[in-house]
């Protein structure tokens, strides 16, 4: 993870070690080492390490999916449900409709994008808060998802896709590398492209953006569309890595989707993103997961820990903001 924080601006005199990403990186590294020691080196065995990164792919992409809507000051409560829905549809297309894997993958991505754009369009057209709109679409999607196949499980689809899910390149799972590639593209999008910057401008100050000739409506639709597309990517990763798909997939992704960007230092109010922070935070959450598995902790405790960390991160962000305001 050597991505530079292209979207976060380092002011003059702002040293690397004073950035929140650096703090997060130190905590992640320390946590990893501690867990490796605590498991007696078991974490570092090839199989465990690979599994660790394979199941880090979805949290990263889903965190980015939430981050892009946070960038414009919105939320997407439907990310988890949408990921599950896209996964279901991809599996259904391969098994029931008999379509080849590439077309199913393309369909999942298109579906994610379409639902995302629909979310954005609803927000723009109705002027209803994105929180409510996506709460509604989440519920609708959950209903549709059971409609596709009821409570049954899809399995035994495309061998090629599942092989991709298991594949490794230089010891790193292919799906993890996909997630990293997506992260690089997202970082480039916000840091360097006109549209990405316009999204940040709309999120940072919609009034100033409008008076600078930027269409906030366009920013909202693009952000939601991109969020949906990333949910589609997460769905493809899920389908290929897990080997089976059922109607409950994605239900447990909502909290992680917020945890990664928020712990990663992304402002809830919009206007600021941190791809590196989101990656590191997803890594941290994954560490907590592994810890739970390794030591047989009640899974309920994991939710409690992650919830508490999210709350703490938000508090920290508010505190940081207040200190900064006082100093200027």
């Amino acid at each position, binding site marked *: 993870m050597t991505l530079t924080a292209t979207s976060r601006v380092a002011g003059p005199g702002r040293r690397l070690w004073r950035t929140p990403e650096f703090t997060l990186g130190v905590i992640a590294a320390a946590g990893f080492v501690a867990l490796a020691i605590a498991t007696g080196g078991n974490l570092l065995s090839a199989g465990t390490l690979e599994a660790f990164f394979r199941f880090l792919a979805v949290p990263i992409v889903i965190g980015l999916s939430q981050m892009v809507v946070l960038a414009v000051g919105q939320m997407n409560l439907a990310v988890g449900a949408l990921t599950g829905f896209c996964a279901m549809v991809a599996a259904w297309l391969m098994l029931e409709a008999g379509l080849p894997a590439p077309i199913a993958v393309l369909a999942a991505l298109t579906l994610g994008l379409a639902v995302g754009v629909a979310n954005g369009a609803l927000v723009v057209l109705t002027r209803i808060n994105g929180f409510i709109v996506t709460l509604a679409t989440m519920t609708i999607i959950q209903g549709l998802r059971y409609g596709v196949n009821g409570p049954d499980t899809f399995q035994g689809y495309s061998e090629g896709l599942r092989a991709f899910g298991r594949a490794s390149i230089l010891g790193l799972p292919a799906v993890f590398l996909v997630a990293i590639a997506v992260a690089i593209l997202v970082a480039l999008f916000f840091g360097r*492209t006109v549209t990405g910057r316009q999204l940040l401008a709309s999120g940072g100050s919609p009034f100033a*953006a409008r*008076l600078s*000739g930027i*269409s906030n409506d366009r920013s909202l639709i693009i952000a939601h569309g991109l969020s949906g597309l990333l949910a589609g990517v997460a769905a493809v990763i899920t389908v290929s890595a897990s080997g089976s798909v059922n109607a409950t997939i994605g239900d447990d992704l909502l909290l992680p989707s917020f945890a990664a960007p928020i712990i990663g230092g992304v402002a809830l109010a919009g*206007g600021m993103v941190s791809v590196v922070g989101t990656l590191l935070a997803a890594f941290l959450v994954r560490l907590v997961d592994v810890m739970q598995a390794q030591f047989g902790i009640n899974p309920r405790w994991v939710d409690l820990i992650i919830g508490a960390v999210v709350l703490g991160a938000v508090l920290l962000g508010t505190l940081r903001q207040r200190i900064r305001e006082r100093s200027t």
Partner: protein
Amino acid sequence: MLVAENLVKTFPGVRALDGATLTLRPGTVHALLGENGAGKSTLVKLITGVYRPDQGRITLDGTELHLGGPLDAQRAGIGVVHQERNLIPAFTVAENIVLHHLPGRAGWLDRARMRAEARRCLELLEVDLAPDTPVARLSVAQGQLVEIAKALSLDNKVLLLDEPTASLTGDEADRLFTVVRRLRDSGHAVVLVSHKLEEVFAVADTVTVLRDGRSVAEAAPLAGFTQGQIIDLMVGRAFASIELVERTVDAQAPPALHLNKVSTALGHREVSLWVRPGEILGLYGLVGAGRSELAKAVLGLERITAGTVEVHGSPARIRNVGEALRRYRIGYVTEDRKDEGLFMDQPVARNIAVTVWRRLARAGLIPDRRERALAETYVERLGIRISSPQQLVGQLSGGNQQKVSLAKWLAADCEILIVDEPTVGIDVRTKAAFHELIAGLAAQGLALLLISSDLPETVVLADRIAVMSDLRIVGELDNDHDYPRMSQRVIRLIHAETHVEGGVAAT
């Protein structure tokens, strides 16, 4: 008797009050007058505890008041009705009136006592309003009366009314003044802040005139003045002129921007004005006259219902700022740089380049280098003081922020620039530098529409001055830069307007 003596209040870079004195006697209506920026609202805010004075003291019947907040002022019996509404629309008249001291019994709201108290206040004003009416259903004038009733429910001895007739019709204003006289007769001290001299002379007994933060007339009987004398006092004679670049406007050149009988959904009626390349048209008016809103209508942010906008002689249909900028080369430097002009937590370079990202981009990506180079050009041209183009705009001083806000439009090669209150909240020296800058832009051939509530600034900079009042242009003057004469003419235009109209506001 309330006495505020030698009050001094400084804000960063601005001395808003510089030894102002206000004396209020029970049983009088006292007018507080002054031009925009003379310190009226600061004085009101000091007396009502919103701000604390740097120097000077406020005494009530001989005891000094230390007002730590609006609540302290309320406890001391000083009530205020602000220009903007402070009622909760969903609550009833009664709930709003007694909001500050809701009567309770064991934690439960005592509705009967609440209604009785509200009725008492309304009867004091001889206003016929049902206490259970939701405020949302009231007219503006009725809402105003509810606000006064609210101030009375606190047993105030002193009542400040800040521009109470700004949104009332002539009849409604007359009824309000009946109430004001009744309050005076029952021993209240009423302060009337107003720019409508007509109504001031009709209702007030004494007057304090502020100019540049000082009282130039103190609690003087109003009967001793004519309206002309009051205007003289408000405007003053002393005025230091600034040397600006010599400019010549080609009087034959077609207008760069021409508004022809433009009416808007906000209520502007047949507004006509034009500005030629190289010319500065001053658009002067009081706060609330509708100037910024007119600018936003030109940019397509408010709906134009009639009339035409022409740019360089051809009709323009501008639907949004992007179009105004890219197709017509019109830029708008907003008065509200913090919320509308700048991205405070973004670096200077991005704030300047925001209008031209598309032009800077290579294959869809914006190279940092090009953005920085562009920023550096304007940092140098406008003399913006920063440590690096990556410095966050929020860390700059007000004057430098304003320059960044201007720079982004220059970067976009605007030919027509609407500059809205460019020097609000900027210290005197930077202000002078800004005036030079604006004159320099006009000298380079830009057409400038200068919206300002600062009359000296308008007289210094503008070639012509259009005066706006109540969403209409009430007159246009050729500016001869003779401040005393110009300011008298401008102020007469505004006051004559309110005189003729009797305070009828557009709704």
